[in-house]
């Protein structure tokens, strides 16, 4: 008992944060799904979910309820143990890796471990094990093909993503999450501007790692029905689904931390731009005001109330943000609040890119995916690591201006990338001319 008390006394902050993550992330993931559906509807000239709650705001909760009360089906020929284990593994990995993410200067779960970023990457990559095992355990052809695809994809793109991350790690010189962000503050520049190639390599690799379109081959619904999830239904399926969206949040957090300045606001060191700190409450209040404006247009009374509730909660959060400005003793909370705002904003932007690509692009074929991974991304990532290293060396040993060194090496990397793409084009052109020689006169 005393042990427990001692344990609680030392670790209660972490415990509370952990519980919050476990409890809130599924909800957030659910709302990410809603936002995705709404965005998709907007881009596709339709409305999206509109029935449950005003503008479908309660849709995720309805979906979750539906999934919870669905019959739990385990196929007769499935390997019950692994079938049961796999989605749990997938979800657990995604949630655990969130433990090391810094949502603000002090808003985090785990101690500031000195392998922070590796922890996030390593533990979140365990989720793939869940996918592979789930695909195998289902004892279905679609599932196993999905699982095999995901294995190959994991191996290819984890490599590229890992190499892309190294460029930011070289610049910051540490694996510690907080120190990486501090390094970007002291450099007066987010690392995306110092290693743009690294960022875009990671962007592509992270889309592939999270199985999102156009790299969603393991679950390509038009080819493999649902890939590794084919035999899953109900809550197990929901676990996979949540794992996928939680993983999106994780990769977005990694990219934000490494390349987009983490919780730093734009221009963190420029003092005459300090008014930017006022933006968070203003933006949130503006959202609230928009909700008030929309509330008048709701057809049903319940929806009007709901809209007002959303608006009021927005205002409450805005007040929460303003409070530290007004009350001196609460000043300490200001960096944390602002940090969380900027961090979440950057994550949202990153995830928006994911969604945007998903609605726009057709899906890659498996061999094309492998070509992109091995012939373009991985060489590019290696060249980028080399280039960043050379830039740092030029600065440290030869006294070059850091900016000149960075620009020169980035230009070299870009030249290599153009060369790689050209090479790839030539290769595919050669492949196509082997089968047929054409020019479409009717193209238009």
């Amino acid at each position, binding site marked *: 008992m005393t*042990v427990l008390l001692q344990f609680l006394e030392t670790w209660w902050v972490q415990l509370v944060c952990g519980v919050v993550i476990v409890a809130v992330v599924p909800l957030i993931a659910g709302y990410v799904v809603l936002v995705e559906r709404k965005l998709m509807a907007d881009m596709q000239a339709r409305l999206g979910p509109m029935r449950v709650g005003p503008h479908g705001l309660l849709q995720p909760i309805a979906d979750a309820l539906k999934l919870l009360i669905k019959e739990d089906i385990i196929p007769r020929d499935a*390997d019950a143990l*692994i079938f049961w284990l796999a989605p749990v593994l997938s979800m657990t990995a995604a949630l655990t890796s969130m433990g090391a993410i810094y949502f603000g200067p002090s808003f985090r779960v785990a101690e500031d471990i*000195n*392998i922070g970023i590796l922890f996030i990457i390593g533990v979140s*990559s365990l989720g793939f*094990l869940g996918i592979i095992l789930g695909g195998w355990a289902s004892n279905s052809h679609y599932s196993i093909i999905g699982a095999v695809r995901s*294995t190959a994809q994991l191996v290819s793109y984890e490599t590229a993503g890992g190499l892309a991350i190294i460029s930011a790690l070289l610049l910051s010189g540490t694996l510690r999450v907080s120190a990486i962000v501090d390094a970007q503050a002291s450099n007066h520049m987010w690392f995306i501007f110092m290693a743009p190639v690294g960022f875009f390599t990671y962007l592509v690799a992270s889309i592939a790692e999270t199985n999102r379109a156009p790299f969603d081959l393991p679950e390509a619904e038009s080819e493999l029905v649902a890939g590794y999830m084919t035999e899953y239904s109900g809550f197990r399926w929901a676990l996979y689904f949540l794992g996928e969206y939680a993983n999106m949040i994780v990769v977005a957090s990694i990219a934000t931390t490494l390349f987009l300045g983490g919780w730093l606001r734009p221009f963190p060191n420029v003092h005459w731009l300090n008014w930017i700190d006022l933006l968070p409450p203003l933006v949130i209040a503006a959202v609230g005001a928009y909700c008030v404006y929309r509330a008048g247009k709701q057809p049903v009374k319940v929806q009007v109330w709901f809209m007002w509730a959303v608006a009021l909660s927005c205002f409450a959060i805005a007040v929460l943000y303003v409070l530290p400005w007004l009350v001196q003793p609460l000043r300490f909370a200001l960096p944390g609040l602002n940090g969380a705002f900027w961090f979440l904003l950057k994550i949202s932007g990153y995830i928006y890119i994911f969604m945007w690509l998903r609605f726009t692009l057709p899906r890659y074929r498996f061999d094309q995916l492998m070509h992109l991974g091995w012939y373009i991304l991985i060489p590019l990532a290696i060249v980028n690591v080399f280039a960043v290293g050379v830039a740092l060396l030029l600065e440290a040993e030869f006294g070059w201006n850091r900016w000149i060194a960075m620009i020169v090496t980035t230009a070299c990397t870009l030249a290599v990338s153009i060369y790689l793409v050209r090479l790839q084009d030539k290769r595919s052109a050669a492949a196509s001319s082997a089968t047929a020689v054409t020019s479409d006169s009717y193209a238009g």
Partner: protein
Amino acid sequence: MLDSILFYFFAGVAVLSAALMVTRRNIMHSAVFLVTTLLAIAGIFLQLRAEFLFITQIIVYVGGIMVLFIFVIMLVRLDVALHRVRFRLQKFVASLVVLALALELVVILALADKLPASLFMKESVAANHLPPNSEALAGSLFSSYLLPFEIASVLLLVAMVGAVVMAKSRRRSEES
């Protein structure tokens, strides 16, 4: 106290799932239990303040090697691999040998007080005075152990080429 709870938890999981790994007939189950063992061992590493090894264990072993194993298990038909008559005598002999080895090692450990005290001394550096693990490891790896490091990388390259050559289909090589 907390330390010992964690130790017994990780150790228990490691030993139990290792035992299950060896005894399960289904290879995929074996692989899953090996994953559990490896994760528990990673926990032990973390308890020993070897953070970098902890994450290396997870990334390389669980995320890399075990995925490779599972991939091969999926390729190899299980139904053929499962039902085979075992060679009983060899199993018996093997168990004897292992038992003897176990006995020997247990005896050595039991006679520990006769061993030099330095072997059983407590840690020389307190946990909170350890240098940052990954920095220390990197410093050591890239200075004193640079040559072994390079050799290890060459070994991995050789292994990669070897594995590709070995697994490559004969039909494909004839075509090209």
